[in-house]
């Protein structure tokens, strides 16, 4: 198990380097520059800017310097758009915002989703099942850029209960609407995954064995069925949580949250190369680690899997 984890962690390093290289190349290939703006710049001023940021050097020097700083100091450099702000600092301050909203939204989604999904599975083909699955279907089909404004219209502009947007630290009332908006889709998806997984497990032999042993229905479900039935949810959790924690573009934009997702989209639009590379590497690392965590959790949940 330990050697498995170490092996996986070691593979992470070349993977990240490949990701960085591809990102670096893609940014170079994209037309336009971080300094392009509404007003065209005279060539002489453009030359000054290119000299200031070392863009006049040959590409292999620029590439080498980028990689060296990352490998040697884990330093992604300074943002080109936000003068004087280091990429590491931008990630360090925006990650907690995204992570807070993302984790809370996922927890909410997990609790509501698993409970709803279980009810649907336990009372399969009843009115309860249909009602929860209808809601789940709605949750999956309503995109968050629709759900968000509807919640704002309802709770802020009509009832005046909650602020319509902006970040105000944690905990605060501002955080409720983004969490609700963000969790909608995941809630619905988890409910469906739980229902499907649980239904399959409930028909399996070891559940029949458990029932034959004379365990109560509650024990059968809680101790045996859920453990197997939640496996699809667990494998979904890895990538889902990684993406949620590293920021969700739409929700952060609607609610003006100073999170990583907002920076990510802005960095791409701004051609802010160091910031793009920094955030992409960060998301890649998060994804790889989360997938590793999922694999470890699998081994724990499913006795058939051993590394």
């Amino acid at each position, binding site marked *: 198990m330990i050697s498995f984890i170490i092996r996986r962690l070691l593979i992470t390093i070349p993977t990240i380097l490949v990701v960085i290289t591809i990102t670096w190349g893609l940014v170079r290939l994209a037309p336009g520059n971080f300094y392009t703006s*509404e007003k065209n*710049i*005279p060539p002489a*001023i453009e030359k*000054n800017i290119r000299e200031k940021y070392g863009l006049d050097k040959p590409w292999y020097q620029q590439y080498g310097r980028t990689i060296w700083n990352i490998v040697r100091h884990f330093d992604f450099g300074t943002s080109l758009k936000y003068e004087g702000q280091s990429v590491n600092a931008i990630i360090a301050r925006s990650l907690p915002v995204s992570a807070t909203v993302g984790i809370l939204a996922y927890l909410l989604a997990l609790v509501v989703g698993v409970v709803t999904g279980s009810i649907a599975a336990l009372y399969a083909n009843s009115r309860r099942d249909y*009602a929860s699955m209808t809601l789940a279907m709605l949750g999956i089909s309503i995109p968050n850029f629709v759900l968000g404004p509807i919640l704002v219209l309802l709770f802020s*502009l009509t009832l005046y209960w909650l602020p319509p947007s902006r970040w105000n630290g944690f905990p605060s009332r501002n955080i409720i609407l983004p969490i609700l908006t963000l969790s909608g889709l995941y809630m619905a998806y988890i409910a469906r995954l739980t229902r499907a997984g649980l239904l399959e497990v409930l028909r399996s032999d070891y559940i029949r064995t458990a029932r034959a042993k004379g365990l109560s229905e509650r024990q059968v479900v809680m101790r045996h069925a859920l453990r197997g039935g939640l496996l699809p949810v667990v494998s979904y959790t890895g990538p889902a949580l990684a993406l949620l924690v590293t920021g969700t573009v739409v929700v952060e934009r609607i609610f*003006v949250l100073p*999170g990583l997702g907002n920076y990510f989209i802005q960095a791409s639009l701004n051609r802010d190369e160091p910031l793009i590379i920094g955030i992409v590497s960060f998301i890649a690392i998060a994804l790889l680690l989360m997938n590793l965590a999922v694999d470890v959790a699998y081994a724990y949940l499913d006795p058939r899997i051993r590394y």
Partner: protein
Amino acid sequence: MPEFRLNYLLSGCLILACVCAGISCSVVATPGDFYGSTTPPKQNIFRYVNGDEPESLDPPISTGQPEARIYMSLFEGLVEYDPKSLNAIPAIAETWEVNNDSSEFVFHLRHNARFSNGEPIKAQDFVYSLRRAISPELASKNSYLAYYVAYAQAYNEHRVFLRDRNTQQFVLEKDVAEAEPLTPPFSQRALNSPAAEYESGTIGPKPDPAVKPAGGADTAFHRFMHSPARLIMPAEEAKRTKLADSNPKLKTALQNTEPVAVSAEDVGAEAIDDYTVRISLSQPAPYFLGLIAHQLFRVVPRKVIEQYGAQWTDPAHIVTGGPFRLKAWRPYNELVVERDPMYWDAANVHLDEIHFFVSTDNPTSLNLYRVGEADAVLNHTVPNAWLGTIRPKKDYMDGSEAAIVYLNINVTRPPMNDLRVRRAFNMAIDKVNYSKSRLITKPLSAFTPEGIFVGYPQPKGEGFDPEQARKLLTEAGFPVTKQGDGSYQCKFPVEQVEFIYNSNSANKALAEFMQAQWKQNLGVTVPLRSMEFKTFMPARANLDYKGFAVGIWGADYMDPFTFLGLFSTPGGVNGTGWYDLKYVAMLDEANRNLNQQERYQQMAKAEKYLLENQPVIPIETSSVNFLKKPYVKGMYPNAASLYPWKFVYIERDSAKWDYSIPSLAD
């Protein structure tokens, strides 16, 4: 059974949601005088939705409007914008003198101006700030605005003077000029006495008949400025040799010379004493006073910058010189400034704090405004679809904007290199109808915005005339024929033209409208191509397009020249390839004219010439559109959406509120 109840709870929620959504729709439609709540904030704090996240707090660095508004709170220059007219009003300079042909300016600073750390602001700080703003190392995108200052462009572009190795004399511009040079401006002529140069100039801001302009003391630097202009050459020897090969006079002059880099000390800004700044220009620029309020020229603290370098704007280090100082900066969230007790006019600053909110999503910004979490929103936040609801409200701000929308034409490629074709495409557009569909803009036939420059005899371009357009196109060799069903057909090489625009909904509507007009009136279907912003800009600048490219231009200062000057350089901001020396000479002549009325007439003549050559198709004058609560006073819908914050205040007496758009007239 708990599950059972949950089931009902879920359905209940769904029903409740539907009902509430229904209620909310009816609430939106309820008429009211104002858009949303009108309860003034309890404290003297102004909350403003400012748009994008500011790039930097360093005034010369950013070019955007959100930053400009923040800089106006934190920093001050020699002069400030008037909140209504945007003309120069006294700021750190109490009074100023302008020489006879607006090519030299002397500013008299007040003695009580201080930075936020308590240190006095002196003339030397302004000289430092200007030199820094145009230094090639800082690489400011805005530095071109200071190119009027003597030798500023040469310094910014890393150029060199040439000095004779034996005599140590510099080669002068007139030594190598091929044609007879124009009369140099006063700032470059030899001096008899400084006072004589100023006698017919103006003195501001409150001309006292007893005070005669004197122009400040004569100094060695001043005499250097008033000597004939030195020759400016590229720093690279190969480029110089190449230039010399095409000009025999230059070749002779270059012999036995050495290059001397143009340095910051050569730039035409001088501290005559601690409280007098003199700025010498390389050309007459009557609009320079309006330009020098720009953020590029605002004073920055030398010591702090030298100590911390690029990190000087870090909230822990920053020192400012404006009516407010930085209190907190929460990136992508808000920037908070508070009244600076060190400010020379602190007693007249009304607000205790300003909160600049970041929000780039228009509905989100308007929601904040509506629920009363923001007191005003930035310009252009009201989407067209919402105008029906918001426009009748009394807090809706409307006004002419010093910005235009136009089409660039690439005149270097056929068939658009034919003037008749360009005119035909212009005359085939019904701009009046287009403006109607845009609701708040005004149709435009000239290249300067409608109704902005008072007293400017704006010329008219050719109007909507489809008949004439078809005739012109036929004359140009592309016969337009009428079909049986009343539509037109034209043998036009549509594969040689296209209409490019940067993707956003307004541009898309514009492109589709133009396409439909040309199809309907000329029988030509021009292909449209939408591009991402950063792809579009270089394509237009490098003439890497065929046919038409959308253009939007906003004034840098309040003078027609900020628009007409676009075509006085061949590259960069000129996106058409049209560069006509006759036009450049016309503009230059106008700028040398001391009489404002005559100057305007000459400008208008140049504009007429531009329109006759039709490298552009003017479309519309933009319009200011934003919201501010009625209790926000001292904030006006001026032509550039710039607000000198010290005049803004919160009025608690509802009798004194703004119940309509505050007038821009005095």
